[in-house]
């Protein structure tokens, strides 16, 4: 079982559309994991059935047992996050502000503050229309994405892949360069970078590739909307060559990506021309490269 992670550094490059296309091409050989939990959109293309769902807890939240509170105010004094307010001599915790540091609970002389796990969202195991399985999640309002949720989604997907003897876990990675993307990359066999030739595209590609390098994971790259700016495209190609990143394909700027999405389809189902060929060819190359690893 090999883990293939698709990442992009910046949003809007077509990462999720391509991941879903690979999922369709891979069919029954791949278990899909949507780790882009901040903007989890892949379900719109793969139509999961939300067969199994479970709550997801992350971090801690302080809670004051009112009956035992002696109203000494020590908790409020030590809290650096303005999370404790007092109204009518009643101390309460504002969950939006509480960082879960646990300081208040440690110093409460009446031992009436407890830390409880914070409900952060839900995660799901679904059957998808490719005949395979997808693991995905949804964060609650204002919940912080964390490496933990990404790790949870990945772990479940890996477990299923091992049990059902699937060859690949295909991961739609998290955006940015923080903890969630680190967790997306941790343990991966291969990375596919998706970028676009714009001033911010190359900038963000370089930042996220620094992380890939740290993990020493082999990488390949797809340049989407490649014909929109030939100068930037050449700069990206040069960067790929310098870093030894396999250049999989240049995809043209094409509204069929959006048209496919509007139909709830992936590009390889909607398009019957060049785009389909380029994406199919990229997936074949990825499989070959991953099998070499």
């Amino acid at each position, binding site marked *: 079982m090999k883990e293939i992670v698709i990442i992009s550094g910046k949003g*809007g490059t077509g990462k999720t559309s391509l991941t879903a296309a690979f999922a369709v091409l891979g069919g029954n050989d791949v278990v899909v994991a949507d780790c882009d939990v*901040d903007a989890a959109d892949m379900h*719109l293309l793969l139509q999961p059935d939300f067969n199994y769902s479970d709550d997801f807890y992350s971090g801690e939240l302080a809670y004051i047992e009112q009956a035992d509170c002696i109203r000494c105010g020590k908790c409020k004094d*030590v809290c650096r996050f303005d999370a404790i307010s007092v109204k009518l001599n009643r101390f309460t915790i504002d969950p939006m502000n509480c960082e879960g540091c*646990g300081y208040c609970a440690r110093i409460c002389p009446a031992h009436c503050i407890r830390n409880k796990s914070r409900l952060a969202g839900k995660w799901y195991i679904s059957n998808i229309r490719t005949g395979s399985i997808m693991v995905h999640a949804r964060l609650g309002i*204002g919940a912080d994405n964390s490496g933990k949720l990404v790790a949870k989604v990945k772990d479940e997907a890996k477990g299923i892949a091992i049990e059902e003897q699937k060859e690949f876990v295909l991961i739609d990675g998290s955006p940015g360069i923080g*903890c969630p993307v680190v967790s997306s990359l941790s343990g991966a066999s291969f990375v596919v970078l998706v970028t676009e030739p714009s001033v*911010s595209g190359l*900038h963000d590609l370089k930042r996220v590739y620094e992380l890939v390098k740290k993990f020493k994971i082999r990488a390949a790259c797809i340049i989407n909307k490649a014909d929109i700016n030939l100068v*930037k495209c050449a700069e990206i190609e040069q960067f790929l060559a310098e870093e030894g990143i396999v250049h999989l394909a240049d995809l043209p700027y094409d509204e069929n990506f959006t048209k496919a999405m509007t139909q709830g389809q992936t590009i390889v189902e909607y398009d019957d021309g060049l785009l389909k060929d380029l994406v199919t060819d990229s997936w074949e190359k990825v499989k070959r490269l991953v099998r070499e690893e």
Partner: protein
Amino acid sequence: MTSQKPLKIAIASGKGGTGKTTLSTNLAAFIAEQQEVVLVDLDVEEPNSGLFLNGEMIHEEFNYKMTPQWDESKCTVCGICRKVCNFHAIIQLGPSILVFPELCHSCYACSELCTVDALPMVPKKTGILKEFSSGNLHFIESRLDIGEEQAVPTIAKTKKYAIGKFPDAQFTLFDSPPGTSCPMMEVIKDVDFVILVTEPTPFGLHDLSLAVETIRAYKKPCGVVINRYGIGNNDVIEYCQNENIPILAKIANSREIAELYSSGKLIYRTIPEVKVALNEILDYCLNNVEGGNK
């Protein structure tokens, strides 16, 4: 334009890549043609607005947070500091205490619970704030250092800096980080109005509806700008009508816009329709948004 209270407006989107930064920079430059405007890039993990604006840097300062610093001479290696840290920012390796400032949330528990004062809190650099100026346009950005995980304190500080420096600016625009998690909420919690940028696609609609839920949790008024209008379908428009959310402007889908964006150019200067759209957004804000929120 009618003069009124200063307006603080956040420009946000549920997902990345919808044109949030494009709208922020174009709107700011457009307003600056007539009056003073402050643009604050609060996407502190990946501040990109600066790529589209020229200006002279007039101020630069480091951002800090308070983290504990181990004083070996005082330490009795009792291990309390490690046990009270919920974020695993302190470990104890035999006789040494190791602090990981990037993981520290500055709760002060280790420092204040240390019985021998061996972990005083000291400032630690977390990134850099820069201010640029070009005519009427004041541009402020903060960038987090790589490895720093907490965007929220930097966002709070950058906002405070901008408002403190330009308390009377008619327009202060905040380019918000994408998504609907804590950093985005920190941006919107004390603005007067939120402009949500979306695309008329299933992804755009899904992420828009999440962003709207978040904004409603804070009871903030909002309006939608539809970017790449003409592709996709009408579901975003129907959604806005059903939810009573005003559509401030529609910017047509065009390859030319994508090309201008890719080379870091301001779009409204070349494409008149975009200028019309910016004017519509501005008019709406001036006539319908109540300013003066603190």
